[in-house]
C-alpha cells in the first residue's frame, strides 16, 4: 500500500479545484465511456496515446509483482477525475509505442534487479497472456477478436495476429513447462474445470451485459448516422429556404419559396421522390407544375387520377399542359392554377383551370392566339384534341385529351 501511496501525494477526501487543475495539466482523465473497471487504464491510454488494450495488459502484468498493478491503478484513480466529453484518443506512431514497450520491459527488469521480483513463471506467463490478448482484442487497431466484438473495426493485420497468438502460446508453454509437471493431471483438470465454471458464474452476466451494451451502442450509432443524414438534408433544403425567406421582402416570393420547400420536403419525408416514377406522366406533370410555380410565382394545385407512361404522344400532352400552365400564370392574373390529370378507359385528359380574368377565345390578340394555337397544334399532331373554354371574367380552362392504347 505504502509504495502506491508514496508515488503520488493524494488527499482523496477533498479533491479541490487545484487538484482538478493539476490532473488536467497532465491530461489524465478517467474514461467515461468504453471502460472496463473505472476508466483508469483507458485514461492512461488516452494520455499516453497508446491503445488501451496494451495499458490494461501492463496493469495486469504489474499486478503479478506483489499486486503493484492494482496499487498503481487505485492511486491513479484517486488523483484523476472523470473525463466529461469523450474524444477519440490520438494514436501514436509505431515508433513511440515501441519505445513505451521497451520502457515498460526495462522497468520490469529494474524491479527484478532491486529484488522485488516474485517469480519468473508468474510474471512471464501472465504478461505474455495479457499482452497477447491485448494484441488480439485491441479495438483501436484492427485485431481479430476485436473484429468479432465490434464489426466496424477493420480486418486484422497478419503480423499482429501472429504476434498475439505467439505470445499466448508462449505464455501457456512457460506455464505448462514450469507448473504442469508438479501436479498430477487429474487435480489439474479438476481445478481448471472448477475455475472455468467459477469464471462463467462470476462473469457470465457481465459478459452478457457487455454484449447487450455493444448492441445498444451499435443501434445508437446507426440512429446518430440517420440523424446526421437528416440534419444534412434539412440544412441543404429547409434552412436555406428559411434564410432566403428572411432575406426576401416580397410576400409573393416568400410564399412561393415556402410552397416549393413544402412540396420538396413532403416528397422527401414520405418517400415519393420523383426517382422511381421518373418516366411517368404524373411525375412529369408535377415537375412541370413546380417549375411554373417557381418561374411565375403562382401556386399550381396538381391532382392526379391514374397514370400513364411517358411516350411520344404523352410527351406532346405534357408539353401542351405546360404551355397552358405558363399561359395561365402569365395572363390570367389568377391567385392559383389547378391542374387535373385523369387516365381512364383508354383516354388521357388534362385540365388546366384558373379563376382569372378569362378572355374571348374567338377574338384574341395575335400572341395569345399563337399560344392557343401552339397548344392545339401540338396535341392534334399527336392524335389528341384541345379545347379552350374561357369567357371574360369567368376564368379559363384548357382541356386536353389524348387517346392511348390500353395496355
Amino acid at each position: 500500500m505504502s509504495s502506491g501511496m508514496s508515488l503520488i501525494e493524494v488527499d482523496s477526501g477533498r479533491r479541490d479545484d487545484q487538484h482538478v487543475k493539476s490532473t488536467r495539466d497532465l491530461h489524465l482523465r478517467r474514461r467515461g465511456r468504453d471502460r472496463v473497471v473505472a476508466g483508469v487504464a483507458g485514461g492512461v491510454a488516452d494520455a499516453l496515446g497508446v491503445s488501451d488494450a496494451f495499458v490494461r495488459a501492463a496493469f495486469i502484468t504489474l499486478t503479478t509483482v506483489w499486486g503493484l498493478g492494482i496499487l498503481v491503478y487505485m492511486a491513479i484513480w484517486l488523483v484523476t477525475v472523470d473525463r466529461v466529453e469523450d474524444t477519440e484518443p490520438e494514436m501514436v506512431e509505431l515508433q513511440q509505442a515501441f519505445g513505451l514497450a521497451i520502457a515498460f520491459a526495462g522497468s520490469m527488469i529494474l524491479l527484478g534487479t532491486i529484488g522485488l521480483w516474485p517469480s519468473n513463471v508468474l510474471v512471464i506467463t501472465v504478461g505474455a497472456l495479457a499482452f497477447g490478448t491485448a494484441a488480439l482484442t485491441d479495438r483501436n487497431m484492427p485485431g481479430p477478436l476485436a473484429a468479432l466484438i465490434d464489426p466496424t473495426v477493420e480486418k486484422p493485420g497478419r503480423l499482429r495476429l501472429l504476434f498475439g497468438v505467439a505470445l499466448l502460446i508462449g505464455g501457456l508453454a512457460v506455464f505448462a513447462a514450469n507448473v504442469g509437471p508438479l501436479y498430477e493431471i487429474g487435480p489439474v483438470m479438476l481445478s481448471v474445470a472448477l475455475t472455468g465454471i467459477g469464471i462463467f458464474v462470476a462473469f457470465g452476466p457481465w459478459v452478457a451485459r457487455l454484449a447487450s451494451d455493444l448492441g445498444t451502442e451499435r443501434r445508437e450509432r446507426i440512429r446518430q448516422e440517420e440523424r446526421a443524414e437528416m440534419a444534412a438534408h434539412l440544412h441543404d433544403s429547409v434552412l436555406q429556404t428559411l434564410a432566403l425567406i428572411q432575406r426576401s421582402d416580397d410576400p409573393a416570393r416568400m410564399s412561393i419559396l415556402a410552397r416549393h420547400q413544402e412540396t420538396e420536403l413532403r416528397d422527401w419525408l414520405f418517400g415519393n421522390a420523383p426517382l422511381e416514377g421518373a418516366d411517368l406522366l404524373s411525375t412529369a406533370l408535377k415537375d412541370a407544375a413546380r417549375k411554373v410555380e417557381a418561374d411565375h410565382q403562382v401556386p399550381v394545385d396538381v391532382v392526379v387520377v391514374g397514370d400513364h407512361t411517358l411516350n411520344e404522344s404523352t410527351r406532346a400532352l405534357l408539353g401542351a399542359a405546360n404551355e397552358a400552365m405558363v399561359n395561365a400564370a402569365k395572363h390570367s392574373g389568377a391567385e392559383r392554377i389547378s391542374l387535373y390529370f385523369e387516365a381512364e378507359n383508354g383516354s388521357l385528359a388534362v385540365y388546366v383551370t384558373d379563376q382569372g380574368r378569362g378572355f374571348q377565345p374567338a377574338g384574341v390578340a395575335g400572341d395569345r392566339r399563337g399560344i392557343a394555337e401552339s397548344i392545339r397544334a401540338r396535341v392534334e399532331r399527336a392524335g389528341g384534341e384541345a379545347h379552350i373554354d374561357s369567357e371574360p371574367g369567368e376564368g379559363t380552362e384548357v382541356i386536353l385529351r389524348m387517346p392511348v392504347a390500353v395496355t
Partner: protein
Amino acid sequence: MTKLYLVDDHRLFLAGVKAELSEEFVIVGAAYDVDTAIEEIRGLDPDVVLIDVHMPDGGGIAVVEGVGETNPDVKFLALSVSDLAEDVIAMIRAGARGYVTKTIEPRELADAVRRIDAGDAVFSPRLAGFVLDAFAGAMPSEEDPELDQLTSREKDVLRLIARGFAYKQVARKLNISIKTVETHVSSVLRKLQLSNRHELARWASKRRIV
C-alpha cells in the same frame, strides 16, 4: 352561432386558425393532445371540431373514434399538412366529414366549417382525386354493389371539384342546384366510409397505370 373546437399539437398554427375563425364562430376550446381533446369534446359537445391528423398517441383518428362512441353528433373536419392518400382516406373512414389541407385560404376554411356544420361533406380537390382513383374501374363486389360504385353524376361532381371549381361553379356547370351538388358529395362520403372496396384500404400501395 356554431360552436367550434380546435385540436392541433402545433400551437402556433392553432393560434393562427383561432384568430382567423374567432369572428365567425364561437371557439369553445382547444387542445394540443389526443387525451385532453377527447375529454373536453365529450364535455363541451361542440358542433364542429377542426382536427389535425398527425399527433402523438393515435392522432386525429383516435379523437374521431373516441368522441364518436359517446357524442355521435359532433362533426369533424380534418385539417392537415399531410395530403397522403392513406391519411386522408383513413381519416374519412374513421368518421370525419371533410378533409382540407393546411394551405387552405382562411375564407375557404370558414366556408368549409359552415358546410360541415350544415351536415354536408367537404372535399378538397385532392380528396376528390383520391376518391376517383379509389373507385376507378369496374371492380364488382358481391356484397353491396351500390356502395362500391360511384354514379356517373357523382363522378362528374368529383371531377369538377378536382379541377378546382367551387360548389357554386360545379352546380352551374352541371345545371343543377348547389343543394344537389352537396347531396352528391355527401353520398360519395357515405360510400367512402362504408364501402368494402379493397382499394380503399391499400390503395396508396400501388399506382394505377392505365
